[in-house]
């Protein structure tokens, strides 16, 4: 299956990336990683892309890792549709101090606009 993973430079995205790499190996998926911009993220997009390339190489996978500009949600949906991906994977939200699951605006946009199946990684 052709899977597109969207991540930014956050810790949540690091977790999402690791889990998706594990799943890619199990399912023998064809993975593409896109690093989207995020304001005040812990890692720059280039740093995140380098981390992603290191992790996929370590996992023995051949993965295209790209850095993109523009609005994160619409860019992900656009790439997923234009390049005929089967699935778009994104982080499944953060947790509040109380433990409530919180979905951000990128997730909302992707869920409401993507024509492909969306996977929320938790």
């Amino acid at each position: 299956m052709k899977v597109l993973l969207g991540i930014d430079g956050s810790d949540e995205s690091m977790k999402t990336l690791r889990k998706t790499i594990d799943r890619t190996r199990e399912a023998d998926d064809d993975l593409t990683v896109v690093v989207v911009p995020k304001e005040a993220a812990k890692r720059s997009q280039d740093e995140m892309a380098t981390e992603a390339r290191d992790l996929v190489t370590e996992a023995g996978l051949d993965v295209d890792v790209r850095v993109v500009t523009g609005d994160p949600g619409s860019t992900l949906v656009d790439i997923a549709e234009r390049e005929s991906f089967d699935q778009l994977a994104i982080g499944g939200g953060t947790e509040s101090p109380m433990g409530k699951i919180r979905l951000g605006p990128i997730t909302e946009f992707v869920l409401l606009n993507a024509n492909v199946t969306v996977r929320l990684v938790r």
Partner: protein
Amino acid sequence: MSRERVYPEEPAGPFPEPPQTFADKEEREISVVTADEGDVDAVTEMYCDFDPADRAQGIPPTGETRIREWLDTIFGEGLNVVALDDDTVVGHATLVPDTANGEGDECAYELAIFVLQSHQRAGIGRKLLTTLLGYGKREGIERVWLTVERWNRAAVELYRDVGFETCGSESFELEMSLRLNG
């Protein structure tokens, strides 16, 4: 989240302080009292009976082990009140420090309330909420926030009624905030 949360300028209140005893709409005598780590067993029991349909954004978790882990965290860090019908816990409200927004006095608190299905629509949630806010003010808490699902009109109206104002609506859930002290 690095976005700065907005709080109302004027403090809300006054709010009653625990303990409180009142008759609910079903004429049951209900007490709202403070709770600490020693009460986790009784509160766990309430959540084991909780209808999963009333979960909000993943809490309470299901299964005794996960419920206990969750309660250990919020009872370890936060302020808690429970509603008692005789000796049975039928409601719980909590304020959990949000250390992402500053330590000590700068710290804001996230609020949540849960009322057991058998005791809903009887005015217990409102009493839990106001008494928890009175307790929070007594303990020096200044800023409180919460998230609520948009479709949960009863909850949104209750929060608005005690002084919460909408401060964020760009996500699935509505974010509301309240100031306790000036």
